[in-house]
């Protein structure tokens, strides 16, 4: 019975359409999985990106005018030579949307999570 209704050619065409559909939607699907990532910028240029959810080993990163510590899924400035130390006062960050910047040294830490971004504000006024 099957052989009469569905032929090899039909399967081939159906297969092609599925491939096209996957090709279109796969990037969107991949991007929406939640991966908590911290980005370190030096003068507007991305220096390093750290997967906080996976990168669990404790380590420090040297940045211009300071040092950043990554430990237990948290990241923050532990040393800075700027006059106001605002960056260090922000402490250790661990949640999406959190930022810490050392303006005099032009470095900053930003945490993003593609999945949860919809719940975060587009901007913060201060």
């Amino acid at each position, binding site marked *: 019975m099957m052989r009469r209704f569905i*032929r090899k050619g039909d399967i081939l065409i159906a297969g092609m359409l599925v491939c096209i559909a996957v090709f279109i939607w796969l990037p969107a699907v991949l991007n929406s999985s939640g991966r908590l990532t911290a*980005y370190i910028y030096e003068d507007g240029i991305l220096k390093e990106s750290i997967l906080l959810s996976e990168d669990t080993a404790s380590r420090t990163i040297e940045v211009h005018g300071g040092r950043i510590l990554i430990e237990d899924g948290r990241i923050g400035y532990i040393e800075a030579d700027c006059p106001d130390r605002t960056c260090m006062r922000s402490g250790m960050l661990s*949640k999406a949307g959190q930022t*810490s*910047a050392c*303006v005099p040294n032009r470095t900053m830490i930003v945490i993003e999570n593609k999945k949860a971004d919809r719940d975060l504000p587009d901007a913060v*006024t201060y």
Partner: protein
Amino acid sequence: MTEKDKEAALNRYLEEHFIEEEKAGLEAEKNSVTSAKRPETGRSRLIPYSNPKAKYYCLIGLLIVSIIALVIVDAVRKKDLLKVNYGFSMGTVVIENIYGEKDYQPIFDDIGGIIEECDGRLSLTNEDSLISVLNRTHTADFGKEAGRLFDPLKKLYEDSDGAFDITVGSISALWAIGTENARVPEEDEIEDGLSHIDGSLISSADGIVTSGEGQITDLGAVGKGYVCDLIKDYLVEKDIHGACISVGGSILLYGAHGDDPVYTVAIRDPEGEASDTIGTLALSDCCVSTSGNYEKTYEEYGVIYHHIMDPKTGYPVENDLVSATVISDSGLLSDALSTACFTLGLEKGMALAQAYGAEAVFIDHAHQIFVTPGTELNITNDRYRFADAD
């Protein structure tokens, strides 16, 4: 045999053989029809393989349909595209969100250039800036920018009864809050600084701006908001799909992200860290700025001094407010009004904002929030509440 005879014989021969072949063919067909409905090939029924012309058009049709589908899907997804850029300019953090533009890098570069150039013209710390020339020689050629920049500020000086005054620079320079030279000036220094503050002496005509002798004009309270207006001009000119730009906390909202022109802007918690907020506003196509006593501070002997100076007293503003947020179509006005309203305090500040047709959110020392009637603020921090909620 004649030619005619040969031809006839040939035709007869062909006929006989042809007919036989035809008969054989028909027989074979008859047999196959009785055993099975159709020959079992793998060919799809969608495509009429037997009819070459129809098959050709059908395949072309499928190709056109799939191309159209891909184009539509691509256009829909392009609108949702978001690219973010982080940078430093004007002495602060700049965050640019550009929506629905595949070629985003030139846009980031252009906006960065606009901010840098504006900073170069208006920065107090840059010796070669137009403002520095104005402060040294008390006359400077701002060209076409003069009217757009100085006229509204002069009007605000008058409307706020001098609470907002760009000549407050002579006092701000003494305190230098936010720099390594921050200190508490002596009283006689403050007296002297106050004597030079008089916003009525600023005049602008045909692009030439003049100030009074001994005056220091400081656009620090309006620069970030003003550059948002310049960025907006650029976004309109380039017909950018959507953008949300933050220049040190002065926000520009433009266009739409995806199909949605409404953006969410959060207000920082005056007592929290960079990402702590008190609530959110749903806004489109406007500018938002905030002035608060927490942004830049200096501490001496346990007393905390903030950076927004009162042009009447020569000391940091001290009243019922900890922050004032103003929403306006104009970035320059949102920034200038936030400073003016913060300086005036709750009652007069609220009246001033409303007189300018701007929306506002004020926060006082008791964690109470005051809003203009047209503002819809969603409070997300339970330490804060609306003033009339008691």
